[in-house]
């Protein structure tokens, strides 16, 4: 279980080195994206159009931040991860269309996403769900926001972060998957528990 400090844009070889259980701190730019932003990114790719952000070596954060506007600037107040499951369907396509290297979220993602991570050389990192003020403290500034028509939580926020973490590598590019392991164990204990019920 090693510790890494990485700068964006992330390089494929750096990401492929990561193993489940490692902890990572990211500095640079990260992009928020939830259900609707994923849809729009895919639509653009299908239409052959460019998105308003550069996603080479990008970090996508599953988050709908709580923000406020002060003196004409956006400020991130609270910004923990949202449940990544909702993005299961769109993520394999997203990884095909854009060279994203890291996804940050909570709760883990599907087997198809795990496959796509392996194939494309990307990882999924877990951030403790609800630890939103800690996360916001690592956000230095809002660089810009796109697609505000989707609503504040669903918009595409471009955030400059410093030592964003500790992120736990939960699904790596080798097929390692901490959620799968924990889930398998839980299902095994469930069988035993059910057999012993009175």
């Amino acid at each position, binding site marked *: 279980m090693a510790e890494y400090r990485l700068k964006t844009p992330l390089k494929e070889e750096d990401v492929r080195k990561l193993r489940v*259980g490692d902890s990572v701190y990211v500095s640079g730019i990260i992009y928020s994206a939830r259900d*609707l932003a994923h849809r729009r990114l895919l639509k653009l790719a299908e239409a052959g159009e460019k998105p308003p952000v550069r996603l080479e070596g990008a970090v996508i954060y599953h*988050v*709908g*931040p*709580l*923000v*406020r506007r002060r003196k004409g600037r956006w400020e991130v*107040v*609270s*910004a*923990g991860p*949202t*449940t990544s*499951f909702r993005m299961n369907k769109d993520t394999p396509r997203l990884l095909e269309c854009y060279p994203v290297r890291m996804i940050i979220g*909570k*709760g*883990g993602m599907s087997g198809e996403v795990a496959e796509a991570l392996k194939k494309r050389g990307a990882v999924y990192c*877990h951030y*403790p*769900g*609800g*630890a*939103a*003020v*800690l996360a*916001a*403290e690592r956000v230095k500034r809002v660089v810009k926001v796109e697609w505000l028509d989707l*609503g*504040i*939580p*669903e918009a595409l926020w471009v955030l400059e972060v410093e030592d964003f973490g*500790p992120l*736990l590598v*939960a699904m790596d590019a080798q097929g390692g998957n*901490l*959620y799968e*392991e*924990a*889930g398998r*164990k*839980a*299902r095994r*204990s*469930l069988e035993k*528990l*059910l057999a012993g*019920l*009175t």
Partner: protein
Amino acid sequence: MAVECVELKVRRLEEAVVQLIRKAAIELPSDVKEALWKAYKSETSKIGRIQLKAILENITAAESAGKPLCQDTGLISFYVRSRSIDHMAVEKALRRAVVRASRLVPLRPSVVHPLTRLNTGNNTGNRIPNILWMLEDIDHMEVTVVLKGAGSENSSDLYMLPPGEGVKGVKRTVVEAVVKAGGQPCPPTIVNIGLGGTVDLTFKMAKLALIRPLGKRHPEGGIAELERELLRLVNSTGVGPMGLGGRNTALEVKIEYAHGHTASLPLAVNFQCWADRRATLRIHPDGSAEIF
């Protein structure tokens, strides 16, 4: 004169409820904080301990910065208890308080139309905030606010069990639901259970369980025993903090029930994430008020 008097009361209630929402969004109730500390101390999984440590640090950081502890400030529900209620006036105050708190605390605008997905921008909407009126024989008025995020609400479900399965069926279903939910509702969770009634009442029972503090058992011995047994079972699954493995899957299991039809056994499982945000405002007959 009378109209002015009502308006004044509405204003004061609105003001107090803005403070109430602020407190709920920023600071967890002490029963929840204690339970999280206990979980941290008893957790044996290394990754699990890291999750709980981050949770505890975040609680402190939110309090000292005066910021909402989770970005998902959720859908807002109010539980209003009183002997007699001026529904229209109270509802007006509560709605206005939500709009103002959204800007002042601030809260994330999280309320959208179910189909168009258009965000209303101020956390109110059709039938939102959700208000549950509870007529009770008490001298004061109590308003409990609950901020409920989507992660835990999305994992909730209703089960129509064959009545013949009885208590065993209830145990099986609850434990299966917890394993299926995994890390999605941000464990350690509080599992709130409703039993019996017609299905609306079943869920209402689960919501009444939700506002009961942790550590306070159901007054009936048999139900209290089932709560204890379910907590033990749930924490034997090993789902653990954030679904990454460990012994602290739930902080508490609470049950409320209504009698039901002889041919049904409805069971509602409503998950509450560790960010169990609720606070209560009590207004005494002399007009003095306190928040706890």
